[in-house]
């Protein structure tokens, strides 16, 4: 009988790249944020797709971007969103709007609770998962002035 600690179904979930999204995850391993841009309608696209969500074109090209943006919203959890995240409470869950206009669900790191303000500038943090399976894109408060 499997116990909870040995059952992989109860391990912290990891991202599993697909053929479509692989360049995004490969970019993070190099310390780069890469987004798709539609060559037909010039839309920036996130999450990665096979077809542009604005015009359905398949002409999506990968571009390296700065990865900077603004905090769109956040919450600090007092109860884990699932048992797998008990070790991360309080979770600083965030949605970041990159300067290209796309939004990314992520977390804030290296920020005190009382420093978090919606609209603040944020910068990417490339954080390998504990087992080194992947690199996650987290964000922290950016000190450099950015576009307003």
């Amino acid at each position: 009988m499997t116990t909870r600690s040995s059952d992989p179904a109860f391990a912290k979930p990891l991202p599993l790249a697909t053929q479509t999204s692989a360049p995004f995850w490969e970019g993070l391993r190099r310390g780069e944020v890469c987004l798709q841009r539609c060559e037909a309608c010039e839309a920036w696209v996130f999450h990665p797709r096979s077809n542009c969500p604005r015009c359905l074109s398949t002409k999506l090209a990968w571009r390296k971007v700065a990865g900077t943006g603004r905090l769109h919203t956040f919450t600090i959890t007092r109860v884990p969103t699932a048992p797998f995240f008990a070790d991360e409470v309080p979770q600083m869950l965030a949605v970041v709007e990159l300067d290209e206009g796309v939004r990314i669900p992520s977390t804030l790191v290296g920020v005190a609770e009382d420093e978090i303000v919606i609209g603040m500038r944020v910068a990417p943090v490339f954080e390998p998962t504990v087992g080194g399976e992947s690199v996650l894109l987290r964000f922290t408060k950016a000190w450099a002035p950015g576009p307003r």
Partner: protein
Amino acid sequence: MGLAGDAAIVGLADWKPARKYAGAPRFTIEQFAELARLALEDAGLEAAEVDGLVTARIGESSNFVPATVAEYCGFAVNFAELVDLGGANSVGMVWRAAAAIELGLANVVVCAIPGRPTPIRPGSERVLDPRWFYGASSPEYGSPQAEFEIPYGHLAQNAGYAMIANRYAAVHGYDPRAMAKIAVDQRTNACANPDAVFHGQPITVDDVLASKLIADPLHLLEIVMPVHGGHAVVVARRDRKPRWPHRPARVVGCGEHLAIKSPAYAKDLLSTPVGPASELAFRMAGVRRDEIDLACVYDCYTITVLLTLEDAGFCKKGEGLAFVRDHDLTFRGDFPLNTHGGQLSYGQAGGGGGMSQVTEAVRQLRHDAGVRQLRRCDTVYVSGTGGVMSEQSALILRGEA
């Protein structure tokens, strides 16, 4: 264009919500059959008259769901639908049934969502299934949520709604006491409803704000109460009988809208799908907002109610907190809302919780709501919300003249 109002809710069944159901577990199809029997009995209709059904997902089959339900209940139908809109299922079921009736496809349509415990396979034990933690989020391979949200801890519902509330606070300001008042007024309603799970347990604004913080800024008492229960309605051609046992609730307007699964990608996090859904419903019904006698607003969280009041047009964007402060939302008040107690205080029987908003609307239209009965109730607004404000639906119901 739109519904003519020829279909009406003529029967209903509510299983009293329970924190823990004391009876024997039954399969979803068994519960569906029993809820159908009760709702048909309430409508004064025979089982043989059923020629349409709408179901949500069931535990006993992952596909061919409508046929599985039809066979089990003994229904031969011309209209069968599986609705997959989460908490918007209830409203989505009712308008689909009404539309099928107006198209001439069916005359008597059963819509049921059971929510009592189901049996487990003999020899196995009830084990904690990690899939339960994901709620509205999909952990399947290839799901954008599995890849880009879940690994960061973005999953289930609490955090998503909390992030919407925080965005609201940053853009329009926030008043935790007004948010708490939404829960308090509904609890007052629940205390006038002997079926509500929190009947006899009044709360204050301070109680809500003193309850455990789950995800800033949402407290425990601002979050829906899961219960065991179940609900069903029968939608029929209103002229099928010259006289019905109860006043029929005509379905005169409906709307539905969805564009995203995850709120992170919403074009505007504070402009929710219930806006366009409600606009369609009001326009179709030819009803003004000030003609609504009762609002049955899907209330998985206080923030859902706040945004629905704004987006459905009961007040302007950004003025919801003032609206809540200025109005008494109880059954005695000037803007009665969720007079049964809402899912916050009546209880949410799984995916069927939203059907309690429909059945309360019908009870009030029938003038059969006991001590919480509104003096005047002819026109009701009902909303449904699935996921994290992803799919939303709206209904306008009108009591038969």
